């Protein structure tokens, strides 16, 4: 038996099919993954993402610690509540994890890291923290619900304290605020507008039921995966890991090279790779033939590459994927699907954004 979120029993009552996900017993769908996907693209859906790990970083050296730890630069964060996406690298420039950091105040940041990488992340964070005056606190007392879709914020606002609704609805994209006991962030992993709400665990079940009553459809992690892939967002462990750098993973934009004297972990390795030439790149694939792209299929393109994530896109009604290919790959490639070489077009993600096809 895996670990359970506090909303677990409600999921089962709501008809969820539960599967193991990184050691957690999580809903994969509540009947139809495709309908859940469309609900998020056209209306509002919600995900229990309480398996993710919330970590608070506090202390006089919080900023300088994170500037050393992360390839993106929290020095860019000057407005309270602003969020920053980026990678935590090892000395070789390999990705230990990707994460979101929220700037709360000069001495206080909140990070949300992946569930499957929790143990190694916390060990890494603690080990790097010894040289800094900071305190690292895992917030296992908190749960997290993502509400996503064009109507998600409006519907979810009815579950917030009345005097906090306006503040929540006026949050700009990629900003968060602590509103009484709820931490509301206008972020997500679907390519749609919405919030990620961090809630004290003893109130999470009640919030979930309120959101459901407000017309937000419960969605499983199956739909979360097709939504993030359509949105061109990487999944840790599939699209990048410790053997790949951000530059080979479509994440060069999350590496802050300036200021040049900021010595973040992995910087030397990334600079060396950039000097010598990045050998591989992560691209989007749109399958021209019938079939479904899946992780680990071989890609033929100026040498060999590999599909890192693949699925059927419910919005585009065809198969899409991400693949790591030699840097010289052209506009079309061939993918080996069960012994047949099928044609795929190389595209720049996202495939879908705010409900609309982009390829």
């Amino acid at each position, binding site marked *: 038996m895996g670990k359970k979120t506090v909303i677990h029993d409600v999921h089962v009552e709501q008809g969820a099919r539960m599967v193991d996900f990184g050691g957690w017993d999580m809903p994969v769908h509540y009947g139809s*993954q495709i309908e859940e996907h469309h609900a998020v693209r056209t209306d509002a859906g919600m995900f229990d993402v309480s398996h993710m790990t919330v970590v608070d970083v506090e202390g006089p050296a919080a900023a300088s610690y994170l500037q050393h730890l992360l390839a993106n630069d929290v020095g860019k964060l000057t407005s309270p509540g602003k969020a920053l996406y980026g990678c935590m690298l090892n000395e070789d420039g390999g990705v230990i994890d990707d994460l979101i950091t929220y700037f709360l105040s000069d001495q206080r940041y909140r990070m949300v890291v992946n569930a499957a990488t929790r143990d190694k992340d916390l060990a890494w964070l603690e080990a790097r923290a010894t040289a800094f005056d900071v305190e690292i606190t895992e917030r296992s007392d908190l749960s997290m619900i993502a509400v996503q879709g064009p109507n998600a914020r409006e519907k979810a606002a009815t579950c917030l304290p009345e005097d906090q609704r306006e503040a929540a609805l006026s949050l700009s994209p990629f900003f968060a605020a602590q509103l009484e006991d709820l931490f509301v962030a206008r972020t997500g992993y679907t390519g749609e507008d919405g919030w990620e709400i961090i809630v004290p665990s003893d109130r999470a079940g009640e919030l979930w039921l309120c959101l459901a009553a407000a017309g937000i459809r419960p969605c499983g992690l199956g739909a979360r995966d*097709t939504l993030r892939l359509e949105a061109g967002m990487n999944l840790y462990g599939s699209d990048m890991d410790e053997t790949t750098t951000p530059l080979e993973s479509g994440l060069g934009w999350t590496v802050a090279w300036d200021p040049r004297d900021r010595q973040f972990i992995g910087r030397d390795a990334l600079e060396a790779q950039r000097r010598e030439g990045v050998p591989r790149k992560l691209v989007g694939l749109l399958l021209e033939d019938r079939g479904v792209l899946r992780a680990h299929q071989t890609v033929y393109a100026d040498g060999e590459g590999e599909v890192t994530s693949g699925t059927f896109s419910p919005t585009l009604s065809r198969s899409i994927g991400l693949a790591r290919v030699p840097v010289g790959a052209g506009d079309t490639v061939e993918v080996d699907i*069960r012994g047949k070489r099928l044609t795929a077009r190389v595209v720049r993600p996202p495939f879908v954004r705010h409900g609309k096809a982009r390829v």
Partner: protein
Amino acid sequence: MSDVPGDLKYTKSHEWVREEDDGSVIVGITDHAQSALGDLVFVEAPETGSEVSAGDACAVVESVKAASDVYSPVTGEVIEANDALADSPELVNQDPYGDGWIMRIQLADPTELEDMLDAKAYEATLED
């Protein structure tokens, strides 16, 4: 509870077989199988004229999440594949024992059917 029609034969790997009057059989996947797979988005049926042996992986059904093999329950020649599934794989979800059939096979040995599970035996495998 999934639907297990009494007039069909079954395999442990969740295929069903319907005997036709001309000595051929229609093959599909069971209601239990389609439900476990979830929304199907792609079906690769075998080519007409191909020879299959009992237990061969001869077709592929893909849901959003994953690809699964369909095993031929019998030995013989594929004489027809359900072309409608190319454009409408969801027929397997909607009508697994009807419009969602996958292929029609001319049996090499009609006695092969005798060893297959009947509805009751198949239902018992689902309870394990």
